């Protein structure tokens, strides 16, 4: 509608000067940041905070650990899921341990991006699935947060539409605080089309301030921290 130059010029005149041509500088105020001393502590605090938000989680050291953990969480459920071959929907490529674990368990994975031709069909698949499986690019210990970048071989609906979301993250990808994560993201240049930061399950307190889990997004969230 309004022309950009006109709009910007009007603001410049309100500010009583010409629009700067270089990025204006300012002196940022320092803030005290949360820091942990070692990776072990970081992984365990990340897990504590994730669990405090209502998520389930485990730190695994081997393939056997991983298999056992998945069987414990989903073994019984899987038996009851009606549409078994389509029940678990996943990224095209999961972290290696995860790939081996699903193979060892002989649980079939539907690869989201290849599973259907159109967006609508993919969404339906994801909405009917029982479990979405992804990896994560980073994690934040202080807030129990997973950080997941979009990518052609991933699909954003996997962590959103199924009632359960399972993520694998290497312990080396965990950071202490949001600032460190943002610094790393800033160095990527053009950001991916979506960076999703997920801290626990979907929640709302909109009815009489009564906390309720899973109004829109996943109801149950699981994380496997791979000790690398």
């Amino acid at each position, binding site marked *: 509608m309004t022309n*950009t130059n006109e709009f*910007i*010029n009007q603001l410049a005149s309100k500010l009583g000067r010409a*629009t700067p041509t270089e990025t204006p500088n300012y002196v940022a105020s320092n803030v005290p940041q*949360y820091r942990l001393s070692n990776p072990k502590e970081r992984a365990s605090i990340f897990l504590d905070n994730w669990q405090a938000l209502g998520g389930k989680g485990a730190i695994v050291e081997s393939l056997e650990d991983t298999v056992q953990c998945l069987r414990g969480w989903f073994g019984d459920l899987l038996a009851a899921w009606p549409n078994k071959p389509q029940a678990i929907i996943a990224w095209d490529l999961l972290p290696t341990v995860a790939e081996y674990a699903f193979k060892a368990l002989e649980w079939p994975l539907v690869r989201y991006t290849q599973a259907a031709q159109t967006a*609508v069909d993919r969404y339906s698949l994801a*909405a009917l699935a029982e479990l979405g499986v992804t990896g994560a690019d980073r994690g934040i210990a202080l807030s129990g947060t997973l950080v997941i970048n979009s990518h052609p071989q991933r699909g954003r609906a996997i962590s959103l539409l199924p009632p359960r979301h399972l993520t694998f993250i290497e312990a080396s990808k965990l950071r202490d605080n949001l*600032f460190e994560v943002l610094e790393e993201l800033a160095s990527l240049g053009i950001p991916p089309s979506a960076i999703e*930061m997920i801290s626990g399950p979907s929640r709302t307190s909109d009815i009489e301030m009564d906390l309720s889990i899973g*109004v829109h997004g996943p109801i149950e969230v699981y994380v496997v921290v791979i000790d690398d």
Partner: protein
Amino acid sequence: MTMYNPTIDQRVDEALANDFLRLATRRATDRLRNNKYKATAELGDWEKWRQAGETIRTHVVANLDFYLQQLIGQIEKQGGHVHLAKTPADAIAIVRKIVADNNSKNVIKSKSMISEEIHLNHALEEDGSTVIETDLGEYIIQIAGEPPSHIIVPAMHKTRQQVADLFEPIAGHVLSSDTPTLTRFVRLQMRERFLQGDIGITGCNFAVANTGSIVMVTNEGNGRMVSTLPRVQITLMGMERIVPSFRELDVMLNLLARSATGQRLSSYTSILTPPKRASEADGPEEFHLVILDHNRSEILGDQTFRPALNCIRCGACFNVCPVYRQIGGHAYGSVYAGPIGSVITPLLEKDWKTWGHLPYFSSLCGACSEACPVRIPLHDLLVKLRARKTLSGHTPQIEQQIFKTYRYFFTHEKILRRALRLGSRLQWPLVRNGRISGGPPPLSNWTKSRTLPKVATKSFMQMWSELNP
């Protein structure tokens, strides 16, 4: 949307007589406020974080032309479309056209205060589109046909039974009013809508100037649905809602989540740089950012009120305000309630006649300024707004008359002495137990909720002259 027609006094009286509303408002604001205290205490030196927030916001607002230009350039480079709207009517026309061009019938929305500010839903529905609010609280008030009563918890004023009653005609059967039942109903109901939505409309908590990204926080995940599933995404943004780069997001997101709900981060924080890349499976193919001015540029040009543009809409000032805590949001009559609403509404709407009462919805205790994560001196701005209103001649006749009379007496000593003597003799019909109560208007405006001390039998002036003969 329907604005409230009752007078201000009626609205306030109604609010004060509504016991559930007052209980619910107090309960909710107490909870939010206490959660905030916990979340801010653990950060170490919270004052340093506030300082940092104020520095960032002040810098951005002082260079808003530069950062907006940069943001627009980045978004266009990435294939997004930017639309600049001077007025709410412009913004509505822009959104209407995008919806019509896409032949869209199913519009799904996540929370956007700008859409409330411009009254968007009504316009789109007139054009024959179905518009669904997907945030649970917004959905409840959409069905009820009411404006939000709190900026973070919009349906705070509704009881669970009222919510169940609103949902029942849609469900077609009786619903019990426990939270899990109501939430499950919304999950199922909304699923279909999400999958069918062809346009998603979102709000914007921050836009990142140097990457052309928009940042959106939600707890329910509806913001992700709306920005992931539909083919077209429209984001509505107030023009001041910018940060220079990813780095500043650390301070801003910490301040926002902790001040709004006491969380370390909201459940979902999305940093989106749409449209989706060609090879990606999910995300909008088409992206429109609508940037609204609506007299924000006037505020920018006004040194006194410019800090009001620093607001990050966290709602912390609502939760500590003794006025808001008594009357809730609807009594204000405006889309933005609470202390910040009282500051910006008269400035955005430029209408003293309708909104001139708002700067008086404050005890000037300063709790709002103390709570504000970006250190906006809200109580100070409220006083200055009162002065602005008075100087522009918009105070009621009766008030002007009272102050004229006051000036007359206090500049004429002899007459004042005589009047005080007379007053102490004539006041007796109004005096009960040594205090003045009742009486005709305008006196009754004061005495209906409190009493006045009676005029002393011997005035101070009299005593003084006796002591210093």
